[in-house]
């Protein structure tokens, strides 16, 4: 059992004066300190968190209105710009960087009274599937400290399951929220592309990046999404939110059509993971949902498409780190050109460099059409197959990952093997559809994640079916 109540219950008690925001902040900070050996957190935001808690408690005392998340502590992945601590993206490049403004997502959560207490570890610049690519430290899986928490939002997922806060924020470019949720036993929501503003979040691959919550329950995820979502003039890719609250969930399973993705249930899937997914399918069927097998024949190409488009956009987005305006700068450069290349050599870790090099290759003259344009066109094919699938079923279902958490170091020297971890998550980013990972049992004490997807902008329906599934399989 968690030491935290449901998020709406915490806020209700703070609003009524039955709980003090100051105590909640101390409880979070104490837990972070007591469990620091898991290395989930890069830095706390203690001073600012205490100040914010005091002002919320004072407002309650003076009968002023406080927000829907009043006093609720949370942890932000360290690629969100926040006040009160450095924002590093777990990279040597941004070590010592102080954000001049905050991410829109943080501003919206704070406007409703939530309190950021710490910044979570990640793979540097969110490049990775295990959080081993952090330039600072490796986060350990809460279920087995010899294993990875998944990535790149591994610190966020571990922090939630270690009870450091009721929720954490992550970013998901190819599975970076859902995979760590799956490996750590959390709920991880990747909303529709554009539903949550990315202003003030360190950009990775801009046609794929989304922001979402990591929580213990689907209901908590829905509430956090409800507060964060909607158009933001600071991010021109944002789309309008639902007019209804994302917390108004339809949890009826009867006659809901759910497609079991054939391509995710076959070769390469660990047999025990398949059993857990099948057990969930059986329970959904028992609850009178209608389950059918469905094929999206181009899904096996999704990872190859992703590993063209993602590095291409990464190489473009990371070109801003030139060592001149902010970030790491080389001290011994003789001229400007050398200052660029030495600053980038020293500030970027291996994975960032690998992706910049890959991206530069697929975008370079002579290869652009063969790789980048071709990948963008196969992306269209995948999008069309999703659209067609959603004419036949309401939701899609499959595992989040082909396996449970692997050992620290197991894939470290083989980037291609590491990339294969994302094989079941990248397609949702390519298609821009919402997807969620919820816990579906354990194998040898290691959590298994079940993934559900819905059509673009059907985030509320997805949360509803996820909540119903959570209830049916628990």
């Amino acid at each position, binding site marked *: 059992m968690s030491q935290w109540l449901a998020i709406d219950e915490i806020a209700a008690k703070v609003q009524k004066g039955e709980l003090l925001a100051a105590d909640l902040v101390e409880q979070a900070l104490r837990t972070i300190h007591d469990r620091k050996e898991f290395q989930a957190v890069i830095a706390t935001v203690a001073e600012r968190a205490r100040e914010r808690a005091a002002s919320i408690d004072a407002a309650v005392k003076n009968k002023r209105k406080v927000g829907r998340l009043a006093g609720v502590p949370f942890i932000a992945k360290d690629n969100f710009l926040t006040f009160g601590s450095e924002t590093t993206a777990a990279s040597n490049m941004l070590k010592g960087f102080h954000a001049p403004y905050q991410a829109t997502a943080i501003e919206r959560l704070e406007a409703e009274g939530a309190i950021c207490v710490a910044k979570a570890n990640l793979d540097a610049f969110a490049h990775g599937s295990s959080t081993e690519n952090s330039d600072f430290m490796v986060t350990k899986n809460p279920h087995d400290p010899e294993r990875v928490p998944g990535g790149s939002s591994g610190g966020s997922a571990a922090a939630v399951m270690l009870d450091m806060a009721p929720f954490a924020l992550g970013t998901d470019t190819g599975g970076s929220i859902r995979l760590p949720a799956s490996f750590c036993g959390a709920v991880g929501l990747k909303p529709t592309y554009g539903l949550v503003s990315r202003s003030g979040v360190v950009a990775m691959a801009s046609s794929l990046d989304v922001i979402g919550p990591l929580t213990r329950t689907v209901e908590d995820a829905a509430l956090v999404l409800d507060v964060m979502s909607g158009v933001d003039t600071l991010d021109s*890719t944002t789309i309008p939110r639902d007019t209804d609250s994302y917390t108004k969930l339809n949890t009826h399973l009867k006659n809901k059509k759910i497609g079991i993705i054939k391509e995710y249930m076959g070769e390469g899937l660990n047999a025990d993971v398949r059993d857990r997914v099948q057990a969930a399918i059986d329970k959904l069927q028992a609850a009178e949902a209608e389950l059918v097998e469905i094929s999206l024949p181009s899904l096996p*190409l999704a990872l190859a498409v992703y590993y063209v488009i993602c590095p291409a956009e990464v190489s473009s987005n990371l070109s801003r780190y030139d060592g001149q305006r902010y970030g790491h700068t080389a001290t011994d450069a003789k001229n400007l050109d050398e200052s660029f290349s030495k600053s980038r050599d020293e500030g970027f870790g291996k994975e960032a460099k690998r992706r910049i090099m890959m991206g530069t*290759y697929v975008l370079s003259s002579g290869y652009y059409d063969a790789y980048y344009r071709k990948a963008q*066109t196969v992306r269209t094919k995948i999008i069309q197959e999703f659209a067609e699938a959603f004419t036949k079923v309401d939701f899609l279902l499959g595992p989040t990952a082909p396996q449970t958490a692997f050992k620290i170091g197991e894939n470290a020297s083989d980037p291609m093997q590491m990339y294969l971890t994302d094989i079941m998550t990248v397609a949702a980013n390519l298609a821009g559809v919402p997807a969620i990972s919820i816990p579906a049992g354990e194998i040898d004490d290691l959590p298994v994640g079940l993934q559900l997807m819905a059509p673009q902008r059907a985030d509320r329906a997805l949360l509803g079916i996820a909540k119903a599934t959570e209830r049916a399989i628990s």
Partner: protein
Amino acid sequence: MTKLSRDDVLKLARLARISLSDDEIKEFQGQISEILQYISQLQAVDVTGLQPTSQVTGLVNVMREDVIEDYGMSHQDLLRNVPHKQDGLIKVKRMIG
């Protein structure tokens, strides 16, 4: 299939403005070749009649008024993270000569 030479890797590093150690050049030569091998499976895919996708939600030319908004930040706040500065400006190395 696509196998990168040492010169290919050096050319990419130059384009991307990253100076690499000899070990990194060697390591990347093998690893990037392996990744290219994997993604080359896309070459065989039939995409007749399909257009490339760069934006998934159908937004086109999102415009806003070009107005100045006050974010309450001073010149000094904005220069806080600059590694080398002089007289309130960003200082860089010589570009020519």
